């Protein structure tokens, strides 16, 4: 709870700092504040938490772990933002504040114990993101991204709410435990309301996490939004979406998984193929990342299809690996774009000559995204495959393997561009903050890849 309070109060402080023109203090205050929040979250660890506020929130290990993950990722992204927002407009404090508000929503999302809080968390997060997607006010793509994101987000919220309502209608409560008990005590019930409710919730959540066939907004929004915001959306937000997804389905609906898991299975397979195959055809690195994020959503869905004891950890490991790697990718994209003015793969040509470190970091990131051993991404995929095989989902794993192979093509395009194609270019300037973020992320990626126990048994 302390974490959530700090994360909520911090943006207000930032807004006021912005009012009093303390531009220099913004980033340090944000980071210090978030570190305190991080500490508060860690303190919460293993305290055998019970639901608080009439069962609204539950700060158990699951929530703590995902909160910590989100906070760390956000810190990294914010460090990349040094000097970034200044170029967009003068309201820097607001951007920081909105990102933090969004983070507050995310923390609610990973800690909810009541459908009300799920909804509130999702909305706090989404509404902030609608704004963030459109912060380049004069850039048409950004505008469009904001509008699309907004319309689709609100649309999906409608589905989610209708689903929640139907669940409430049949179970009479929003509390996850009560819903679970209802399911247990009505095992043979053919309550159409309840099952329709589950389906609608799946639709709503799939929209939010960008799983096919509800993914179509994702590439446009990711492409249109400013790169760092896209980084935030595709990492922290996506992870939180899956955390919420998992939490809801594992606590409340796990006993009726025979009903919904085929649905999600189909969604998973569609997501994998659509994400991967379309990513192949992209010329823009940013758009490729957008599609790859769809396919990663597919892998993350594995944990939900094959719901088991280890699923929570799998989601966390995968999401962490994916987030960290994506942060590197987006950071590199920001730098390259600043120099070359393009998002395309060509922009990376010959990068390795002039910026070996940058190229190395990006290579590690791509390897991790592709799931090559000794990187965190491999561990994530490994966990997912293990979980799925444990549930005898062989077909799904085979399909995932095929997709993993397809993904090599587009991830390696960047590596090829950087190392094997040459282009006249000068050295890209890598600011110190970026260096830190890259270095840290690479270390974390490799560390998790070599010794996943660092994070794999936290929940």
């Amino acid at each position, binding site marked *: 709870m302390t974490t959530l309070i700090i994360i909520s109060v911090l943006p207000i402080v930032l807004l006021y700092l912005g009012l009093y023109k303390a531009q220099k203090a913004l980033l340090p205050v944000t980071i210090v504040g978030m570190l305190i929040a991080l500490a508060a979250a860690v303190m919460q660890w293993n305290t055998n938490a019970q639901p608080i506020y009439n069962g609204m929130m539950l700060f158990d290990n699951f929530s703590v772990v995902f909160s910590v993950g989100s906070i760390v990722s956000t810190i990294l992204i914010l460090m990349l933002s040094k000097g970034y927002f200044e170029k967009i407009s003068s309201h820097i404090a607001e951007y920081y504040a909105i990102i933090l508000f969004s983070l507050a929503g995310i923390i609610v999302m990973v800690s909810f114990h009541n459908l009300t809080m799920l909804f509130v968390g999702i909305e706090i997060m989404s509404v902030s993101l609608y704004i963030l997607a459109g912060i380049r006010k004069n850039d048409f793509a950004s505008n469009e991204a904001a509008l699309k994101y907004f319309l689709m987000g609100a649309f999906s919220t409608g589905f989610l709410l209708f689903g929640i309502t139907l669940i409430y209608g049949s179970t009479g409560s929003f509390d996850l435990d009560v819903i679970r008990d209802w399911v247990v005590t009505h095992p043979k019930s053919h309550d159409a309301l309840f099952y329709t409710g589950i389906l609608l919730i799946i639709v709503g959540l799939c929209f939010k996490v960008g799983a096919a066939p509800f993914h179509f907004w994702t590439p446009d929004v990711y492409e249109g939004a400013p790169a760092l915001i896209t980084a935030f959306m595709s990492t922290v937000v996506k992870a939180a979406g899956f955390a919420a997804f998992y939490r809801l389905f594992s606590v409340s609906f796990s006993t009726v998984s025979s009903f919904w898991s085929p649905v999600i299975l189909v969604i998973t397979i569609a997501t994998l193929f659509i994400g991967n195959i379309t990513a192949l055809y992209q010329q823009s690195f940013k758009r490729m990342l957008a599609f790859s994020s769809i396919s990663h959503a597919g892998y993350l869905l594995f944990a939900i299809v094959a719901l088991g004891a*280890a699923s929570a*950890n799998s989601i966390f490991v995968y999401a962490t690996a994916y987030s960290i790697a994506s942060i590197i990718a987006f950071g590199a994209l920001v730098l390259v774009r600043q120099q070359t003015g393009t998002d395309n793969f060509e922009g990376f040509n010959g990068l390795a000559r002039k910026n070996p470190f940058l190229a190395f970091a990006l290579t590690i990131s791509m*390897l991790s995204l592709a799931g*090559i*051993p*000794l990187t965190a991404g*491999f561990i994530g995929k*490994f*966990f997912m*495959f*293990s979980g799925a*095989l*444990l549930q005898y989902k062989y077909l799904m*794993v*085979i399909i995932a*393997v095929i997709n*993993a*192979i397809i993904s*090599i*093509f587009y991830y*390696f395009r960047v590596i*090829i561009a950087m*190392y*094997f*194609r040459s282009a006249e270019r000068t050295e890209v300037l890598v600011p110190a903050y970026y260096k830190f973020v890259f270095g840290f992320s690479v270390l974390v990626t490799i560390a998790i890849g070599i*010794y*996943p*126990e660092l994070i*794999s*048994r936290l929940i």
Partner: protein
Amino acid sequence: MTVSILLFLPILAALAVLLFKNEVAKHVAMFFAIAELALALYFLNGFVADASLQYSIDVPWIKQFGIYFKAGIDGISMVMVLLTTVLVPLIILTTYEHQYKNAKAFYALILFMQAGLLTVFTAFDGFLFYVGWEAALIPIYFICALWGGENRIRVNIKFFIYTFAGSLFMLVAIIYLYLQTPTKDYDLEHFYALSLDAKQQSWVFLAFFLAFAIKMPIFPFHTWQPDTYTEAPTAGTMMLSGIMLKMGIYGVIRWLIPNAPVGFLTWGNIAIILSVIGIIYASIIAFKQTDGKRLVAYSSIAHVGLIAAGIFAWNIYGVQGAMIQMVSHGINVVGMFFIWDIISRRLNTRDIDKLGGIAKVAPNFAIAFLIIVLGTVALPLTNGFVGEFLLLRGVFGWSIPTAAIAGTTIILGAVYMLRMYKNVMQGELNELTATFTDIKGSEKLALGIICALIIVIGVYPQPLLHISEASVTNLLETVSHKFITTKF
């Protein structure tokens, strides 16, 4: 003292190389490679040639999934470790005449790859095996793609995709086996102890087979290989053909057949037929090649086909033959590629038809070339002979007609190899070849070592065979036992 030191030394070495300047990188790399060799010899010294696992390490790695860092050396591993540790310094030695751009990265990658290879050869944990398998792949990808020829990008992505695809299926199989173990871990011995039914074994077999077949490569999965060998820098080709290819063969011996013996019964025939087809096919293609490096690449497919056939015959002769032939082939093929490296470096061509009469201007080179060619075509008293003899004996035990067909590899091999030698070394000097200068310095040293090894192993293979014999026998027994216990 455990095997872990053997695995981590190359990684440290790789990092160390990165600290030095490009100019001295090769010396540093050489130093570490020799240190590694010394270490391996030290292990050999204390090695007892029975079936036990020695110098083993077994510590928890990822406990929740039952993953252990379990590695050790038994007879089979010992041979592979020796092969690796001998060839790596040799390969580094062959690069002494090259001036690679960004050399420290090059040598670091080679050393890093060595770590991966050694991990594969000593791992007794499924997960560790897989990690080593992939860890060997990444460096070679970069070596080939960064320092390779003109088509390197396209060719290498093909190579990578092929091998990665295969290994992912292997990963699935490994995870599957893990899930079947009662203790829920990746320990190879627990895998061996499993009793899966025939259908399960079939699938496991196929998944593993795909990975190994691509790596070796066996006939329909070989298409990446000639291109990659041709485009790769010579050192890369040597790593690929000399050591990495053996990962596949080793995998078949250690991971494929013992884990899925009944699957092997079902599919083994097809595998052996594919191997034999590969032999003939590759030999015929090799016959038509004019590019020397490409010719060697195809000859390599042919030889590997024979090794594969010998293993799939699955008897003591076949497997032991494979063991020794792996070493021989490693040495020979490295020598062969080095020969072509020398030629192409001096003359800027690898076209056999453009060459001729080099023996006249470079007698030392001619002798070395001849010895290596003879080793490759398995003349008695060279290393190739021992291996091929045992392999054919093994296949013979499985099926006489097949053995007969497989035996043509020796004839065909002799034909195209000797034709190559004749075209290159004999005949009249032309304008191009007249400029050829004889080998010297590091070249002489490297070729000398190779020739020495060819002859020594050819004359006295017994110690090498002795190292692996007990382990191989043990493995064969395990499999036989499993045949009996499997539910059909």
